[in-house]
């Protein structure tokens, strides 16, 4: 487990070991910590704009003693067999899940108009990280579907009354063509959430009608 302060210090240290400046997007627990939804996380999920950027980051991680590990015990089969799977690096209890542009078919863009926070870690080089809005964090948690991801979604919903479900569904529909199980997973998770919070029927209807178009 890593807390916010340790995470920031680790990023600052990595910035010292980078060979060039890079930009990435924080998702998952890392983003949740930056936004104050939780205090510790097991894994640091980052999305890079290109595989070259990821390679630069990996080089810095390897200099710090991180080694690559298998996805098998963390992700389910359909995710481990996916085309755009992440590379995992760990050292002790900390683990980095490193994606390139694409999180199981969900394409993330680095638009400054759409981000919630920007963190610049200035060392010998610069590591710039963007944090996405809570709606996209929820959607990505649905897509990664690891142990505790649902718990994290509940944490966000518990602390935020104004979650824009329309935005989540719009984004999932927009990106459905890249991932055949995106809408099905979203529907399943919303049904699970419905047991504790109110989710209007119209949201389910939109998902059903969007999914029908692909059959």
């Amino acid at each position, binding site marked *: 487990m890593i807390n916010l302060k340790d995470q920031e210090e680790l990023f600052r240290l990595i910035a010292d070991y980078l060979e060039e*400046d890079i930009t990435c997007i924080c998702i998952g627990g890392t983003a949740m910590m930056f936004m104050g939804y939780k205090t510790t996380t097991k894994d640091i999920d980052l999305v890079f704009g290109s595989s070259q950027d990821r390679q630069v980051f990996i080089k810095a991680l390897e200099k710090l003693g991180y080694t690559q590990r298998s996805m098998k015990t963390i992700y389910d089969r359909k995710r481990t067999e996916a085309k755009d799977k992440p590379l995992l690096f760990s050292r002790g209890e900390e683990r980095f899940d490193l994606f390139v542009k694409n999180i199981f078919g969900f394409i993330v863009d680095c638009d400054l108009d759409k981000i919630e926070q920007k963190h*610049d870690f*200035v060392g010998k080089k610069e590591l710039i990280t963007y944090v996405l809005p809570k709606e996209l964090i929820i959607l990505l948690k649905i897509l990664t579907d690891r142990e505790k991801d649902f718990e994290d979604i509940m944490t966000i919903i518990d602390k935020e009354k104004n979650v824009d479900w329309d935005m989540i569904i719009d984004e999932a529909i927009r990106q459905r063509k890249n991932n055949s199980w995106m809408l099905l997973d979203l529907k399943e998770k919303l049904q699970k959430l419905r047991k504790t919070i109110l989710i209007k029927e119209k949201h389910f209807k939109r998902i059903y009608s969007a999914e029908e178009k692909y059959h």
Partner: protein
Amino acid sequence: MIKEGKYTIERFAEEQGLARQSALNKLSRLKRQGYVSVDGGGRQKRIYTISKLPRRKTNGFYDTVNRYSPEKLQPKFDHYVHGRYTVEHAIIDGIKIGDVRTRDATKHLFRHVSSWKKLFDLAKKEGLLKEVLNLYSQAKRTVRVRWIPRRYLK
């Protein structure tokens, strides 16, 4: 249960059913944890803003611009910098954000550049040399800014 929102010390004490000093202690503790920010003080009455999520003070582009520029900006995102952040960095970030209001506010930062070399090194690294010179020439028309050393104009 503390509700989110803006409070004066009297309103907070009343809402929580506390004496004034106890309310101050409670707010002080919440402030340390990042849940409260304070406005005012001195002659102005203090207004406490309580949020449900801990919020840290930003220290990035918008803070630099709003400190030096008479044209203030409403932040589009929270910008935190872990390390050194200078006016030169802020000019580059302002150009990257790119909308008209941000560019207008950024023009005023040219008055506070302490190292033209650093500014042009950063611009070169980001591929924004033309844009920096462009913004500088716009600034020169409307704001009193210092001359760029000639070697950078070539």
